[in-house]
């Protein structure tokens, strides 16, 4: 067995209290690796592409797991597995958008252990970066995925700044559409941040996918009742139905007033470094009904402002068609 096939020497902590986990996270700083299901972790380590000093396994912390009712909606603990989310009755009845998105993540085995927190804060899938190259995202000074001969079929068409990686998370789009709030804890306290601001683009955080700083842990996600039971549409287009990441995905929440759309959230995944809200579509569909004509009318707005790379022009009609499908009656 090649040495790369085994895990490198790295310390493991399995705290059972959040406070201990936070202390460890603070102590190790960016040398600590917070572990949920670990499905986005072991590949990095086996490939020797990332080199943390210690893994901090959160799955033993009881308080981080489970789906709870709140005064205004629900709260989902960060280490709740995708399997638990997919099978949760409350989520299926009121927030089926999230259940659908979680159901399209990776494969059954990964959903069985993969956590919501891990899925939301997973790292970019750009293969130049995953290969361990010292690109911008890895703290370097160039992008291997955006050059005359670079292969960038899966990369960004929007919001790139030096780095052109995209947000790979399926649940992230649903969270932005549902106006969820992320609860982030550290040894100095707790902060809550809107899902839209939780995810970070390369213009501000080129080495991170989220605004989580070293020492901080995402502990829970709160979903307000605002969108509970509304009309949802989720679709993920990928090369393979299983395991694969989205080429483009769309998560839509619409609150209907009779036949017409009173308010809506259209969020695309796989097109920018963070979930991308189609604000012009949202404002264009206000007051409109779901129909093929209206779908055709607003679809072209979906790709406004895009700047495709050499090999990903196909994402533009894909975005438009996903909006069209979401708007069909």
């Amino acid at each position, binding site marked *: 067995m090649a040495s790369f096939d085994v895990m490198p020497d790295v310390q493991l902590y399995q705290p059972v209290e959040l406070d201990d986990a936070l202390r460890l996270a603070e102590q190790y700083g960016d040398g600590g690796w917070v572990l949920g299901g670990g499905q986005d972790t072991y590949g990095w380590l086996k490939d020797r592409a990332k080199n943390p000093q210690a893994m901090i396994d959160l799955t033993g912390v009881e308080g981080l797991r489970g789906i709870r009712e709140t005064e205004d909606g629900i709260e989902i603990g960060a280490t709740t597995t995708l399997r638990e989310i997919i099978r949760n009755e409350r989520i299926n009845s009121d927030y089926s958008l999230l259940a659908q998105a979680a159901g399209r993540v990776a494969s059954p085995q990964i959903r069985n*252990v993969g956590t919501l927190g891990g899925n939301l804060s997973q790292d970019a899938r750009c293969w130049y970066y995953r290969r361990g190259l010292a690109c911008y995202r890895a703290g370097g000074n160039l992008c291997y995925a955006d050059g005359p001969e670079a292969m960038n079929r899966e990369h960004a068409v929007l919001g790139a700044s030096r780095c052109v990686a995209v947000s790979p998370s399926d649940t992230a789009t649903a969270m932005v559409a549902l106006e969820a709030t992320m609860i982030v804890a550290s040894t100095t306290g707790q902060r809550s941040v809107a899902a839209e601001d939780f995810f970070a683009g390369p213009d501000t955080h080129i080495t991170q996918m989220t605004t989580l700083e070293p020492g901080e842990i995402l502990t829970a996600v709160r979903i307000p009742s605002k969108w509970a039971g509304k009309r949802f549409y989720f679709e993920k287009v990928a090369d393979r139905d299983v395991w694969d990441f989205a080429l483009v995905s769309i998560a839509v929440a619409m609150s209907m007033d009779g036949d017409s759309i009173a308010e809506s959230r259209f969020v695309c995944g796989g097109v920018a470094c963070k979930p991308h809200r189609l604000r012009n579509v949202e404002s264009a569909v206000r007051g409109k009904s779901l129909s093929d004509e209206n779908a055709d009318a607003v679809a072209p707005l979906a790709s406004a402002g895009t700047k495709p790379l050499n090999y990903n022009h196909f994402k533009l009609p894909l975005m438009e068609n996903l909006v069209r499908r979401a708007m069909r009656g």
Partner: protein
Amino acid sequence: MNPQLSRRRFIKAVIASSVAAASNSGFHSALAQDRSRGAVERLISINVNGQTRRVDVAPQETLAHTLRYKLSLTGTKIGCNRGECGACTVLIDGITNYSCSTLTHSVRTRAVKTVEGLQASDGTLHPVQQAFIDELSPQCGFCTPGQVMSAVALLSENPTPTREEARQAMSGNLCRCGAYDHYLNGVMRASGQNS
């Protein structure tokens, strides 16, 4: 960037390396030091196929590695070792997991079942195993242990799945021979719905 942090890290590294250098029995001193800091112990018990097994497990060790190289349960195969192919699928508390992407330390309080634990004590094969033989499901056989475990998990939860449900449940297991339909035939036969 943070000078305080890096100084602390530097001091820690010096302490760690001097401990390792000063002690011949590095294992025990490392153990004692780690325990005081809340890190995992190495000598643990895990429940595999109904038996409690004592085993020395490194902190970063994966379950697939422990099963195959420490417990000699080589029925579990390692294919990609990246959680992509499903050859290493085992059941943990009845749920399918990629054992190559599970830390052994995370299953200490849980029940692991591998393909070796399926047959009855008299040697009778599990219905899924028998159905896979009857349907000639495997071709080269490398992915078979994983396919078997996924099918067992499905049928224990949903004894009479539709073919589409079976397809979904088996979708985390790749077969490079492309014998997917044969495996699905096996699942349907094992559920008593003859294909």
